[in-house]
């Protein structure tokens, strides 16, 4: 197929449609409005639903309803709007419903700013909502990866019956890169026997629910889900690694930040410092093992983020003291400069 140039936001929307998502519920917020705009244009043409909800809360609860009714459903927003979805997300996780949520992160806290940020890492990965639950979090670094991740996200969501979050930033959402869409047409979707589609008097009623008044019963359900999470930690970790074999300094960075890090690594190479990169593609499950393995050989690891230091905690947990783990970040919408990252590399080399 011919490569086309597309904005990240639009590419994510188109990818969702190609993944057979026909139900999108959103609420406008910069810098991800193009997702809704694209859906608004396309959905009516293909018999799908684009609905601008009255709020992010309504949108996530519409997703709950639609997902519970067995269709592929999606919502997208940016940081403050994602915070508003936390209760709903917890409900979706608690009712074991598959769905895809996109967060094109902007600077926080509060109204913050609309420039790129990665300061919603904690919220995404540690569960900003209440209760013991997890969300698969995928952080593409290019538009092509955003496309592939989005399509895959729907499959993962269905496979594990849980929410999958695609996390990016305004850079990813707004930039264009050449992409091709993988062939998805005709791919059959598995039947969802648990969904509320009307019994047609041919089966017992299906119930979508997260309430269990008896602690023992609820605990059993949570522990079964925990088991599922362990399976995912074993089989769904994704990352990109570069130069780990002989790196003195290894950088861990995700999303667009990882691209900037590569520019810094080029500078380091010129200075004769051997650097490596681990780019988590899934933020949860987190690529712990490779980080631990790397920590045992490297002189130091630096976590580079557009935040005041969030993923660095997971990097430290993974390294478990095997080598020092440093942090470098910019926040508030400021984007790290390759030179500044290079300075950090030099500092610890």
């Amino acid at each position: 197929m011919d490569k086309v140039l597309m904005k990240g936001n639009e590419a994510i929307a188109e990818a969702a449609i190609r993944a057979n998502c026909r139900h999108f519920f959103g609420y406008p917020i910069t810098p991800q409005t193009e997702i809704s705009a694209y859906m608004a244009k396309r959905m009516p043409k293909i018999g799908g639903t684009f609905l601008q909800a009255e709020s992010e809360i309504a949108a996530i609860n519409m997703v709950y309803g639609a997902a519970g009714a067995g269709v592929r459903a999606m919502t997208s927003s940016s940081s403050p709007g994602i915070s508003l979805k936390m209760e709903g997300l917890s409900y979706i996780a608690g009712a074991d419903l598959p769905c895809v949520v996109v967060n094109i992160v902007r600077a926080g806290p509060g109204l913050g700013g609309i420039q790129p940020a990665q300061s919603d890492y904690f919220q995404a990965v540690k569960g900003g909502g209440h209760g013991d639950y997890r969300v698969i979090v995928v952080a593409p670094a290019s538009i092509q990866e955003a496309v592939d991740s989005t399509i895959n996200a729907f499959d993962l969501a269905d496979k594990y019956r849980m929410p999958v979050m695609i996390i990016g930033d305004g850079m990813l959402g707004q930039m264009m890169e050449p992409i091709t869409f993988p062939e998805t047409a005709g791919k059959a979707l598995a039947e969802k026997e648990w969904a509320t589609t009307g019994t047609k008097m041919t089966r017992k009623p299906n119930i979508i629910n997260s309430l269990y008044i008896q602690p023992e019963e609820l605990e059993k359900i949570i522990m079964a889900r925990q088991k599922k999470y362990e399976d995912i930690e074993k089989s769904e970790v994704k990352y990109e690694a570069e130069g780990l074999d002989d790196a003195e300094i290894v950088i861990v960075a995700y999303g667009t930040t990882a691209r900037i890090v590569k520019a810094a690594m080029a500078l380091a190479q010129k200075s004769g410092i051997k650097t490596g990169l681990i780019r988590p593609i899934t933020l949860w499950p987190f690529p712990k093992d490779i980080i631990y393995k790397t920590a045992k050989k490297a002189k130091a690891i630096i976590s580079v983020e557009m935040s005041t230091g969030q993923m660095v905690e997971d990097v430290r947990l993974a390294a478990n003291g095997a080598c020092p783990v440093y942090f470098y970040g910019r926040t508030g919408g400021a984007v790290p400069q390759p030179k500044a990252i290079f300075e950090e590399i030099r500092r610890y080399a």
Partner: protein
Amino acid sequence: MQVLFQRPKALTDAPFHYCPGCTHGIIHRLIAEVIDELGVQGDTIGVAPVGCAVFAYNYFNCDMQEAAHGRAPAVATGIKRAHPENIVFTYQGDGDLAAIGTAETVHAAARSENITVIFVNNAIYGMTGGQMAPTSLVGQVTQTSPYGRKVEMQGYPVKVAEMLSTLEGSAFIKRCSVDSIKNINDTRASIKKAFQCQIDKKGFSLIEVLSTCPTNWGLSPVEALEWLRGNMMPHYPLGTYKDITGGDKK
């Protein structure tokens, strides 16, 4: 031998957990009777609220979803958009619908979302132990208005049926009561009409049902019905507030 009255098929066998004399049970049964009468049990998807009716999913013999507190209309919207040919109804209390869920209610109506809302107004938060609801009457003593609801502090009761009927999107809005045989029968007929409104794709329908909470009103079930009649009905007049079902959906 002819059966004059029996448990409707659209109810499961599970006994209600409601307090003695709580009219939630009557309203449940009326909905089930309507589902039976219309023969739509296999097509119906219900949405349970967070409130005393939280376990409604155990009682209705059809597919059910449990919504977050106040979000039932949004959940129902998601379901209805996924399956426009199914019958989708929500069952919601006054805290659920008229407080935390205000935006979802208003906008489901404004969108003329083709769903049916059964709105159980008992002028109190039953499940959490009797706090003031938006629909609590002026002067009503509750856990969070221990000196009686005061206009200067807590304002006025919200009249949901009146408010929603100003929205162009609402198709059929009626207030009923289950305090007497006559009103119970009228409530059943009204619920049936609301479901029919949905079947005919005429848009958003809502039946507000005045209901009792003997436990948190601190009254016996019989006294509670009297209080409902003497205090709620004067403030919340029964009747049809909006009905476009005569014609086509505008």
